[in-house]
């Protein structure tokens, strides 16, 4: 059994909560006491039917206002897979939540209301999925029951979506499925109301989509998190570098380089919990020992000599601005990247992206909340980085406001 992490996006009444409710309910992940609590709350609120959204809207403010404010994480499992859902709100002002949910997702489900077709929100969600390089997108055309399960309606929406998606760069695989979350058509089981649809049910697709290639297993990257020095009698000379493999494969005997110093050495052993391993790969957490004693600390990166990352103070990145306080012109922020932290100055806002038209808009040197922009940055100390396209872990960073300590932006290196 492995894990599929997916995010769900849709606008306010697309039936997202109903769909999640159905996946959880049909996979027996909703328990009787949870359902009883939701029924009780629905009754007290005066809802006409049991409001499955209350399962996911856990915060008081959300329940009061009937909206989802924050990303909620949901879990369910089938014999084939464990699933982690990042359930993100559909409101326009919460782009930052979708970016957050998408950052760890292998797959995105984008809900389209069959009556409305492809709308601005659909395009916005697809753009974000593309920007965050989610490899698999499922367009779930929902509420097919309200259009009489009509193939013509579905085909038109699929065509419209594909025409739009052809302008996006990175989406590797787009799957379209006609569903009715309310009635359960094509959610868990294939529906006999749409014999014209030959593809799998949504759950079957989620269970079988291949996600083994999500990590980069070619370019070896090991950001050092913590240095282990037991200083005990038994382990007197042990000096291990603890971290999580961010890419590639490390084996005993491999020639490696430590960045930024540039020292060359060999991997001696790969340890995990007292055992030596023949190799380590992403996303394993292990401890490496090296053949020679060199000065290495947190923030350094152990890489293989043949295909090193860039060591640079100048980067160009796509960022999503999260903070209510707009970006300061030529502002200085703290930049956190892998296990390093440094200062960064925004040298230039090259353009903002209008995510409805995908047009580049130039002229502004600032960014407001939910803006997506291409910026150039200069850092106080070098970053050891790849492009986000090459490696999601070594290609991503966040910006932190030095005064408030808030995370103000997420960035993807170009």
């Amino acid at each position, binding site marked *: 059994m492995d894990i599929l992490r997916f995010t769900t996006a849709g606008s306010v009444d697309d039936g997202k909560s109903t769909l999640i409710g159905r996946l959880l309910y049909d996979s027996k992940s909703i328990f009787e006491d949870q359902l009883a609590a939701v029924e009780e709350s629905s009754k007290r609120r005066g809802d006409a039917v049991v409001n499955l959204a209350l399962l996911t809207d856990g*915060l008081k403010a959300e329940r009061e206002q009937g909206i989802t404010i924050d990303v909620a*994480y*949901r879990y369910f499992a089938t014999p084939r897979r*464990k699933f982690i859902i990042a359930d993100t709100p559909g409101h326009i002002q919460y782009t930052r939540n979708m970016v957050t949910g998408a950052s760890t997702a292998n797959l995105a489900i984008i809900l389209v209301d069959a009556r409305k077709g492809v709308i601005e929100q659909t395009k916005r969600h697809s753009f974000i999925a593309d920007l965050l390089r989610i490899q698999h997108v499922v367009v779930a055309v929902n509420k097919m029951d309200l259009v009489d399960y009509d193939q013509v309606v579905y085909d038109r929406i699929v065509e419209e979506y594909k025409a739009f998606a052809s302008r996006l760069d990175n989406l590797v695989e787009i799957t379209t499925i006609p569903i009715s979350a309310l009635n359960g058509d094509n959610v868990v089981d294939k529906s006999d109301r749409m014999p014209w649809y030959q593809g799998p049910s949504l759950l079957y697709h989620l269970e079988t989509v291949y996600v083994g290639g999500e990590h980069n297993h070619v370019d070896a990257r090991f950001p050092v998190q913590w240095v282990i020095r037991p200083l005990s009698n038994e382990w007197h000379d042990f000096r291990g570098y603890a971290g999580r493999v961010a890419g590639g494969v490390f084996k005993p005997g491999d020639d490696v380089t430590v960045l930024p110093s540039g020292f060359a050495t060999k991997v001696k052993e790969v340890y995990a919990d007292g055992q030596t391993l023949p190799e380590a790969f992403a996303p394993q*957490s292990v401890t490496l020992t090296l053949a020679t004693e060199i000065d290495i600390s947190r923030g350094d990166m152990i890489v293989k000599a043949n295909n090193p990352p860039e060591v640079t103070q100048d980067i160009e990145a796509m960022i999503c601005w999260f903070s209510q306080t707009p970006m300061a012109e030529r502002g200085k922020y*703290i930049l956190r990247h892998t296990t390093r932290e440094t200062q960064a100055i925004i040298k230039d806002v090259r353009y903002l992206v209008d995510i409805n038209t995908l047009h580049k808009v130039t002229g502004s040197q600032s960014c407001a909340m939910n803006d997506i922009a291409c910026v150039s940055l200069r850092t106080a100390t070098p970053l050891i980085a790849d492009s986000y396209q090459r490696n999601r*872990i070594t290609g991503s960073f966040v910006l932190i406001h030095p005064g408030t300590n808030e995370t103000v932006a997420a960035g993807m290196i170009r």
Partner: protein
Amino acid sequence: MPDYNLSHLDQLEAEAIYVLRETAAQFARPALLFSGGKDSIVMAHLARKAFWPARIPFPLVHIDTGHNFSETMTYRDDFVARLGAELVVGSVQASIDSGRVVEEKGPNASRNKLQTVTLLDTIAENRYDACLGGGRRDEEKARAKERFFSHRDDFGQWDPKNQRPELWNIFNGRKHEGEHFRVFPLSNFTEMDVWLYIQRENIPLPSLYFSHEREVFERAGGLLAVTDFVAVQPGENVERRVVRFRTIGDATCTGAVESTAATIEDIIAEVAASRQTERGTRTDDKRSETAMEDRKREGYF
């Protein structure tokens, strides 16, 4: 090319170890909150792995309500000794004696809520800047919104509407003086994952989790154990039944379930077939619709 796929337990383990190491690296005085329940046991087990062959570089902190099952205390002392870790105990009784908190009255009196004050005092006294907790997002609807690194203000309060976005595997542990973090390495584990992991790693557990015979009585639809800390009311019928506990907390608010599950395998089969959540046995969550959020806002675990 070989298939570099990790099983779901391996992925969860790698993530938890990464978070534990990140906590040790980003904070000056972290601590691991240890209750003697299965989640904190698994967390401590992962901490041992994360820093092997060195010792766990932070103490285990137990907030002791004084209303523990004796089995929990025996287990705690053995476990800590085997780990070679430092144990710090924060005592709710001491908070009551010094007048910091007032004991609840009535038959449903519990020290569960009082723990928050003792916890925050223990954090302040020892100047802990990060407390690792075994909370999981699948446990409860407010917990579903938690971050791995969860910020607490000067008063130990959680502000769920204003949480820091958490992206990729980058954790922002920056804070001002007096603030601290709660860190949840098991965020993505479910109850089933915890049991499967305990089975795989062969982790010994307190005997309370396994089926045994004990004196219990029914209250508010659940089964409470007869202990020195709970007053049986007139009309409540004490009887011996075969039970076990799905969660272990304070004896005044942790209910038992009837069960014959005597091994980890039995428990896994039982959890798989269960139609009730594990916190369904916790009366502390049932005090209101948002009981957990309310307590967490104040600084609860």
